[in-house]
C-alpha cells in the first residue's frame, strides 16, 4: 500500500462503526485506547505537500513538522477522527495542539502531561495523569476499562513491538535484506492500523523476508538520528546517494518500538515505568548528580549499542528546522558519535521534498567520505 493511502483502513473501520483517535507523539499511552477498542492513528505530517492553510494560523518560523501535521488537519485529511490525544512533551507540539483544539474544536480531545524531570513526585503525578486519561477515555467510550482489558491491550502492544524489533533484526545483515526505506514504510503503515491488524501485517512481512534473497552490493551503513520522519523520501535520498540506512533513533521507528510495558500486577505500574523511564526523547530531563560524562552515558549509551549491533559506519543527524529539543542536543550527541569513531553528518531540513536538493550534495559528500 502506498503511504498516501495509509489512512484507508482507518477510514474503512470508521464506516464500520469503530472510533478513531488521532494521536501525536509516542508518549501517548496507546494501551488505554486499544483497551477501549478505539483505533489509535498516529497523526502524520506531510513531506510531499507544502504548508498552505496552516500558515494562516501559525507563524512560519515554527517547526515544519508540527505545522505540517496541522496543515493536514486543516485540509480535511483527518476528518475521520473521533478525537485527538496529545502528550505534552515539546512546547511546539503543545502550542500546535492548542491551536488545533481552538480552531478545529474536535469532539473529544485530551492531553497527557509528561513530566520532564524524574523527581519522586513526578512519578506520583504521572500516575494520576494516567488515571485521569483513563477516566476521560472511559467517559468518551461510555464504559470502563477492567484490569483484564488493560492487561490484554498491553500484551497486544508488546507483541506488536516485538515483531517490529524482529523486523529490525534483518537490518543487522550486510547487506540488509530490508532497506531502510522499506522498513520505514512498513513501520508507518503499522502505526496507521489497529494493533491487531498491524501485527498481522508485520507477521506477513516477516514471512516474506525470511525467504527473500540477500541483495548486492555492500554499502556504507548509516544510523539515522533525530526528529520524526514519517515519509520515506529522506531515507530514499540517502539510499540514492549510495548508503544503507540500517538503524534509526527517531520516534517513527526505534524510539516507539524498543521498550515494552512490563506485565505487572497493577498494570499501571508497568505503564508508568515505560512512559516515564523507558522511552527516549531529548525532551526528557534527567536529574544529574554526577559528571557530564556519566550524564552523556546515561542518556545516549543505547546509541553505542545500536551502532555496534547494526554495524553502523556513520551517523546522519537530521533535525527539522526550529526543533529546539533536538537542535540543542546536537553538539553532545555529535561528540558522542565521534567518540565511538563514527563520522557524523548533521542536516537541518524543512520537512518538504521540494527543498531536499540542497541536502543531496551534503549527503553524497558524506557517503563519499565513508567509502
Amino acid at each position, binding site marked *: 500500500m502506498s503511504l498516501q493511502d495509509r489512512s484507508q483502513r482507518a477510514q474503512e473501520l470508521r464506516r464500520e462503526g469503530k472510533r478513531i483517535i488521532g494521536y501525536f507523539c509516542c508518549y501517548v499511552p496507546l494501551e488505554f485506547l486499544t483497551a477501549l477498542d478505539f483505533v489509535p492513528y498516529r497523526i502524520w505530517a506531510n513531506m510531499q505537500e507544502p504548508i498552505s492553510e496552516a500558515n494562516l494560523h501559525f507563524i512560519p518560523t515554527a517547526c515544519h513538522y508540527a505545522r505540517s501535521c496541522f496543515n493536514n488537519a486543516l485540509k480535511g485529511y483527518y476528518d475521520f477522527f473521533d478525537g485527538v490525544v496529545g502528550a505534552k512533551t515539546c512546547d511546539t507540539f503543545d502550542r500546535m495542539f492548542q491551536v488545533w483544539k481552538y480552531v478545529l474544536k474536535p469532539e473529544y480531545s485530551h492531553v497527557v502531561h509528561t513530566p520532564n524531570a524524574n523527581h519522586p513526585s513526578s512519578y506520583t503525578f504521572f500516575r494520576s495523569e494516567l488515571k485521569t486519561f483513563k477516566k476521560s477515555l472511559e467517559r468518551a467510550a461510555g464504559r470502563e476499562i477492567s484490569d483484564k482489558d488493560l492487561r490484554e491491550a498491553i500484551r497486544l502492544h508488546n507483541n506488536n513491538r516485538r515483531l517490529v524489533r524482529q523486523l529490525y533484526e534483518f537490518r543487522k545483515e550486510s547487506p540488509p535484506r530490508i532497506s531502510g526505506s522499506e522498513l520505514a514504510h512498513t513501520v508507518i503503515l503499522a502505526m496507521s492500523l489497529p494493533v491487531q491488524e498491524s501485527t498481522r501485517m508485520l507477521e506477513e512481512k516477516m514471512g516474506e523476508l525470511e525467504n527473500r534473497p540477500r541483495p548486492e552490493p555492500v554499502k556504507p551503513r548509516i544510523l539515522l538520528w533525530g526528529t520524526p520522519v514519517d515519509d520515506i523520501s529522506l531515507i530514499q535520498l540517502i539510499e540514492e546517494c549510495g548508503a544503507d540506512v540500517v538503524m534509526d533513533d527517531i520516534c517513527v521507528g526505534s524510539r516507539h518500538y524498543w521498550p515494552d510495558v512490563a506485565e505487572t500486577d497493577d498494570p499501571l505500574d508497568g505503564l508508568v515505568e515505560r512512559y516515564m523511564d523507558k522511552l527516549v526523547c531529548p525532551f526528557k530531563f534527567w536529574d544529574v548528580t554526577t559528571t557530564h560524562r556519566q550524564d552523556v552515558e546515561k542518556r545516549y549509551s543505547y546509541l553505542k549499542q545500536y551502532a555496534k549491533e547494526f554495524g553502523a559506519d556513520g551517523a546522519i543527524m537530521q533535525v527539522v528546522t526550529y526543533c529546539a529539543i533536538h537542535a540543542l542536543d546536537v553538539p553532545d550527541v555529535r561528540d558522542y558519535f565521534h567518540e565511538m569513531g563514527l563520522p557524523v553528518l548533521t542536516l537541518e531540513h524543512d520537512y518538504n521534498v521540494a*527543498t531536499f536538493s*540542497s541536502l543531496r550534495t551534503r549527503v553524497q559528500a558524506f557517503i563519499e*567520505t565513508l567509502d
Partner: protein
Amino acid sequence: MYFAGIDVGSTVTKAVIIKDDEIISVIIRRTGAEHRRLTNKVMEDVLAGPGLVLDQVGCIIATGYGRINVPFSDKQITEITCHAKGVNWLFPSAKTIIDIGGQDTKGIKVVNGKVQDFVMNDKCAAGTGRFLEVIAETLGVRLEDLGELSLRSKRPELVSSTCALFADEEVTGLLAKGVNKHDIIAGIHHGVASRICSMVERLKIEEDVVVTGGGAKNIGLVSAIERHLNLSVLNPPEPLITGAIGAALLARELFDKDRIVVKKEERRLEESRFFD
C-alpha cells in the same frame, strides 16, 4: 592516458584535462542562466585545445552543483570530495579548505587528500559570492573590483544585516548618508568574512588553510578572512579550478585502481536535458 574533470558550478563551469600528472587544458566559462545546459560546449572546447576527441579520455568525472546533468560523464562526485583532492595535489600541506562559491560556501577538513569533515552554508546567501554580487550592483561597481576598492578603506563601515536584502537596504542608507564606497565595501567584506569564519570554525581549523572558489579572487575578502582567523591563507594560482582538477585526478585514480567501469558508448556529448 587522458582524464577529465568538469565542475558545473552555479555561476561558472570549469573543465580540466590531465595527462600523467600534468594539466594540459583548462576552460573556465560563466555558466549563466541560458548557458547552464551547454556543458557539452565547454567539454568540446577543453578537448579542442590539445586536439583531443572524447574517446581518448579514459574517464570523465562531473562535479559541482550541476554534476547530475552532464550526459557525457562516467561518474558524479561531489565538489567537496573533488576540492579536497585538487587542493591536496596543489598543496599537500593543506588541512583546511574554504571554498567560496557563487551560491554556497564550504569549509572542508582534509587528511591525506581525503575529506574528514565539512560544513556548508544553508539556504541563506550570506557569506557567498551572490551576496557580494548584490552589493556590487547596488554600489555600481564591478564584482571583480570589490577587492581592490576595499583595500583603500581607512575606516570600514560595518553592516550588521546578514540577509542579502536587508544588507542591501543598509548599504543604500549608507550611500545616502555619504559614507564612501571603499569603507562600505571593506565593512561588507568584514561581515562576509565573519560569517564564513564562524561557519568554518565549527571544523576546528588547522593550518595550512587554502581559500578557493570565486571568493578567493577577492583580495579584500581574503585578507578579511586572514584577519578573522589570525593566520595567512594559501591561494591557488587559479582558485576556480581546484574542483575540476580534483575531479580529473579522481577519474585517474578510479580508472587506475579498476574501481570504475567506463562505458564510452553511453557518453553523449550533448546539451543537458534537465537542470534543476
